[in-house]
């Protein structure tokens, strides 16, 4: 289908495949190594005392799940490094009064390509294509007019 002869296809393939062969070999060894280390680890721990206790919380009295790092907090250093690009939307609810009851911060970083590139393109294409819908208005006469008009155009253009 590609029209290349068998031999030079083989040639091109060889160039691409040889590094891959080594990568496969190395990942094979890697997996074997991981298995070995895991076996060693489990044999080491077999005889010993293995306990379960709370995560190290530096003595904080009541750690809750909400203190955990979420996805946005995990990426926060990077998102504010590229803050200019990403236009993170922040909504801050300052605590008011002396005994504030309610405060909140909500940040939302939208997908810049989807917002600025794809959505406009798709919407404009869609508007253009929806405009074409008048072609199918439902009346038989119009449809047969289409046939007559195409016939006329073709004849005039070609005769």
């Amino acid at each position, binding site marked *: 289908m590609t029209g290349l002869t068998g031999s030079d296809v083989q040639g091109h393939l060889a160039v691409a495949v040889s590094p891959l062969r080594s990568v496969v070999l190395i990942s094979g060894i890697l997996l074997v190594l991981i298995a070995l280390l895991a076996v060693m680890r489990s044999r080491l721990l077999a005889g010993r005392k293995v306990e379960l206790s709370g995560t190290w919380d530096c003595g904080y009295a009541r750690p809750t799940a909400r203190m955990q790092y979420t996805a946005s907090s995990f990426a926060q250093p990077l998102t504010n490094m590229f803050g200019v690009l990403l236009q993170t939307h922040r909504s801050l609810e300052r605590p008011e009064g002396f005994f504030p009851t309610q405060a909140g911060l909500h940040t939302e970083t939208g997908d810049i390509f989807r917002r600025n590139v794809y959505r406009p393109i798709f919407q404009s294409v869609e508007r253009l294509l929806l405009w074409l819908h008048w072609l199918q208005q439902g009346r*038989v006469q119009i449809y047969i007019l289409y046939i007559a008009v195409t016939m006329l155009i073709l004849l005039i253009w070609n005769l």
Partner: protein
Amino acid sequence: MIWALISLPILAGVVAFFLRPAGPRRALLLLTALGHSGLTALAWVRRPAPAWEGWLLIDPLGLLFLSITSVLFLVVSIYALGYFHREDWGRREDFQEGFLFSNAREPTFTCCLLLFLGMMTLVTLSQHFGLLWVAVEATTLASAPLIYFHRHYRSLEATWKYIMICSVGIALALLGNFFLAVASTLGGEEHVPMLLSSLIGRAPSLHTQWLKAAFLFLLVGYGTKMGLAPLHTWLPDAHSESPSVISALLPGALLNCAFLAIPRVQQVTVAAGLGEFGRSLMLVFGLFSMVVAAAFIIRQLDFKRMLAYSSIEHMGILSLAVGLGANAGYGAVLHAVNHSLTKGMLFLVAGNILAVYRSKSTTDIRGISRILPISGALWVAGFFAITGSPPFGAFLSELVILKSALDQGRTVVAVIYLLALGIIFIGMATIMLRMVQGDPAGLPADHRDSVVTEGHRSNFSWLFGESALAVIPPMALGAAVLILGLYIPPALRQILEQAARAFGGV
């Protein structure tokens, strides 16, 4: 052997009309379908001799389209058994507006179905342009009552439009035939029979001006029947209003038969040295059809109409491939096979969905994978097949067409081709994938429990809550398309190459 191929369905049709009891009539339908496929298989093994002094001959192109039609008809007739059983014949309540209507009587339906098969066989076999015209017009007339199966005003309107537009279109094709006759008499002295072989033989001496006019009229005539862009207007209505049994058959068999006539004319024009003239026209029609199809698939509210527009798109791809010539011919023929099988499967699955959800609106149908697990899976597989995604056959044929477009340096054509395919992929993805996922909304309350808890159990074995007869036929078609994507058997490849050579394809 050829006479048997044609007369079997017609005789069966006449008999079916007078056969009152349902059981034997359905058996007759199935037997005829099996007989027809058997004969076609026989034709593959040993090409039968031409009959009626060369008027009826199985050439590679004809054999290919004949086998597609007969395979599709066999699968559809098996599906029809389950469909007839499910379709209670008395007063039926329409699901969109809730008014009462009755179905056409089954004998007429089966008779027309069999006549339809007979006429389509005649189209694929005829070498004489006049006979070809008569056969194509006969398929229109045979299929008109089939569309008017559910006797209510929407299908009536679809039938009226179908008859009017197709008859007007095909009348132009008749004029094209007469122009061809004049072109042959003007050129030479003695009488030239309107046979394909003799016309090709005398092609150089045909009168170019009349031949061009003839090609135009034939292209518009058969283009209307094939659903090319400005002439496609009847297709969405006919496909969405006809019963799923017929709407599975229409694109796979009928559009292909109409498409079959164009390479025949193309053979004559290429032989007469007007190849380029014909090709550029086909190219323009092909691209315009794809763009129009893309326009109507976006935001489509009725999934059967969406499938109809996708048929227009694929017919556009076929005519684009014929327009490109060279090895795109091979892509065109392969694509015709892939498209018919995939579209047949999709419409059958659409029938299953329609029967359960009783609604055609794409917006409020949800959760098919939960209610109809197998149909849901087939629906997604069909989506990937019809949009030409890799494992399925359509990808291969569309790739060959794209490659030949780029080889010929027609980058603009290739760009429009890819844009249309991309837009249609996105359009269909948003519709079809959303229908499959989510929790089953849009299911009429009374119907929900009956399906989920197998309320009405039919005597056919149930596969995960879906009748086997409703699921195995589309599954078979889907498997065929998948196999075509991975491996093309040598016999089929040989026939494809010979058929591609028919219209200038290398």
